[in-house]
């Protein structure tokens, strides 16, 4: 049962992060939130026993993807209307 609760709580935070990432009015912040989202997601998957996937998500989603996003935002603009 404990595992399920960890699961549900993490999932809730993940959803909050996702909503944050698409609603924050600053692209750099959104990128970072996306990184956080990925990292939490990776925890969620680790809890669910998918260690390989979690590992990949940690390196790719939370790591490289965020760097890519930040790099792109640096080369474009942080400004956004929505």
């Amino acid at each position: 049962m404990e595992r399920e609760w960890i699961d549900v709580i993490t999932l809730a935070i993940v959803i909050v992060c996702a909503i944050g990432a698409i609603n924050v009015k600053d692209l750099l912040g959104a990128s970072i939130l996306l990184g956080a989202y990925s990292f939490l997601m990776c925890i969620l998957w680790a809890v669910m026993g998918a260690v390989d996937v979690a590992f990949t998500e940690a390196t790719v989603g939370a790591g490289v993807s965020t760097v890519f996003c930040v790099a792109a935002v640096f080369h474009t603009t942080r400004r956004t209307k929505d």
Partner: protein
Amino acid sequence: MKILGWLTVLMCGALLIFNVSEFPDMGDANSPANSKQNLSEYFLKKAYHDTKVPNVVTAVLADYRGYDTMYETAVIFSAGLACFFLLRIFRKKGPKSRFYRHTPTGVTLRIDEGGKLPEESDVFKRIDSIWIPHDNIVRITCRLVVPFIQIFALYVIAHGHYSPGGGFQGGVLLGASIILIAVSNNLRAGIQRMSEKGAALMGSAGVLIYAGTAALCLLLGSQFLNYNALAKLLHIKPVVARYNGILIVEIGVALAVMAVMVWIYYNLSSAGKHDEGL
């Protein structure tokens, strides 16, 4: 656009939620996906027997469904190619003035055309523009961390048979270590470690190792990707050949992924100009 978005979302949401109730419960070991068919059971029970790899995910990834994984590598490789193709701008002539930093003092020198260029060394470092920050703490910390990251990455690659991880994760870690150098110093420092051409060739080499191994099996008279064929070549048992085949393939994946990650980063972070970076 907003209304359209909501409409689509509501429609999809209604459909999806309507269907969730038909799903088997979470964690149901008797759902068709998990038990009724023999797939899950087969892999768990037979993978070690077939390949001598205890990490079932690795075994399935690189052997049973190795064909998928080859394309996974090809996907990442084509992403590298695509970023390069879309963004890269080759500058025909260099900029008129060059910038050098005197490392011990942190003073930046601008040398216009015709001026004498200092020899590059630890004292004078070429940089791309005057404002490139210079922070010893960040730089040195990263320098300290990078070797550990790389060793860990190699471990992940090599130990993928027994623990979570494998070529892909290790490759990303290796790439990340170089990206870290590029982030903490500047892009030029990264490119010095791994040039663009090097990255491109290494990416090709990685995919080539994978697809080449697979094709070698075909040439040896077996099916594509059937590592059993390597047994004849290496004079080992077929099962061990599978084990080794997986290792070779994982190394290929790691090489390709590392190179491509770095390559994509180069292009994204400089918008294809390969000058300033972040």
